[in-house]
């Protein structure tokens, strides 16, 4: 695997993301929801830093839109979510934003748990290439419009952004 962002650079992006989140939520604590698996790591770091409650986690594999072409991609994890959402503000967290399809799926899952009051999106790295009208409210680092190609956050300790050898 080749490194795109080192441990230090990844932490810098995380610090930048946390700063924005802290400022936006100075008066209230949202329900932080991390998308498995990278998003859940980032969500944990945010909650630790801001002394918030443990984050919830979502597994979006059953809500993907590529079953027809790629079949079932099960992550082997399960959701850790409150039983029912009743209008609470949600801060949805993922590690890398690309087409926006994962976020679309995650929003669908959230609505199957009830009615969120508001959903904000926090992203560690944005690699461009959007195919849906989805943009982050809080962003650690933009990797540029041209994009960096396929990449993957490795972790949870230490965190770094890598290009996988092959898939």
């Amino acid at each position, binding site marked *: 695997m080749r490194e795109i962002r080192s441990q230090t650079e990844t932490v810098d992006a995380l610090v930048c993301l946390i700063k924005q989140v802290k400022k936006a939520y100075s008066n209230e604590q949202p329900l932080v929801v991390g998308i498995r698996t990278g998003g859940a790591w980032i969500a944990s770091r945010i909650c630790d830093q801001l002394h918030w409650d443990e984050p919830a986690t979502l*597994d979006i*594999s*059953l*809500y*993907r839109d590529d*079953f*027809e*072409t*790629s*079949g*079932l991609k*099960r*992550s*082997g*994890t*399960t*959701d850790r*979510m409150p*039983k*029912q959402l009743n209008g609470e503000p949600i801060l949805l967290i993922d590690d890398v934003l690309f087409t926006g399809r994962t976020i679309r799926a995650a929003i*669908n899952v959230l*609505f*199957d*748990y*009830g009615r969120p009051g508001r959903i904000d999106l926090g992203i560690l790295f944005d690699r461009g290439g959007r195919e849906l009208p989805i943009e982050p409210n809080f962003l650690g680092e933009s990797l540029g419009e041209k994009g960096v190609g396929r990449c993957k956050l490795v972790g949870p300790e230490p965190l770094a952004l890598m290009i996988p050898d092959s898939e």
Partner: protein
Amino acid sequence: MHGPAALQLTPDGRIRHLLTTEGLPKSLIIELLDTAETFLSSQGQPVKKVPLLRGKTVVNLFFENSTRTRTTFDIAAHRLSADVVTLDIRTSSASKGETLFDTLKNLEAMQADLFVVRHSAGGAPFFIADRVTPNIAVINAGDGTHAHPTQALLDLMTIRKHKGDPAQLSVAIIGDLKHSRVARSLIHGLRGMGCPDIRAIGPGTLLPGDLEHLAVRPFHRIEDGLKDVDVVVLLRLQKERMTSALLPSEREFFNLYGMTESRLHLAKDNAIVMHPGPINRGVEIENEVADGPQAVILDQVTNGIAIRMAVMAMTLSAQKNDQS
């Protein structure tokens, strides 16, 4: 690999039909159980439906009576957002003289994606799987006295959840094993998972002759067979067997093999009691056990939905990828 086991797998070893647990590799059983666990968590949401199989058509082909199994397959398909059509074949085509093959071709022409088949003749789902066009998955929902693989998988899921890896457990199956596709499929599934101690308990008339080949130890006295087991699986005593001189009476069966609290003490302290349902209280099981803390019978029902969702998603997934 040849025969039935080969028919249900793709060349690269994924499951394209589920016909039997016989010869199903351990890795695939574990993948099915793990996938079912994922679906189980989606069943805790206020909206229990996931969009995975949106636009797919599942056809329930029930050539034999069944309410319970059919309902769980219905619910599983609906919760995957598939469209479901249930054909009660007994009252339709077959009674008008159409052959099974022609019925199939008609359903294929209606662009079905998955057949759930129950038939009183052993092997019928194999016949169908062997002849359907390649993009249709077939799930065996019970064929004759031969196999009932989804029941076996939900039993394995329940065992694993409550007692851990079957490779460390002793399991006793009690009752009419001879006519039970549930027992046969569970034995194959347990063997596949490496279960070292499978016991069959029942009168000689109700135990099959090939138990030794399956590495199952037969016991005629329940007091001997139950000793120190982790899992007790009761089978439904089918009333129609009573008339065929295999058993004297229900009361007699309960006296000899019924699961009572005092007999359950012979098993390990925290042993679980399972039953595929519907239970006959006072025949296979007394109220105190059926409603007691060691019974996991209703948990089996819940797991049954998740297992059927997993089987549908995995078979259709393999069909799709096999096309490319």
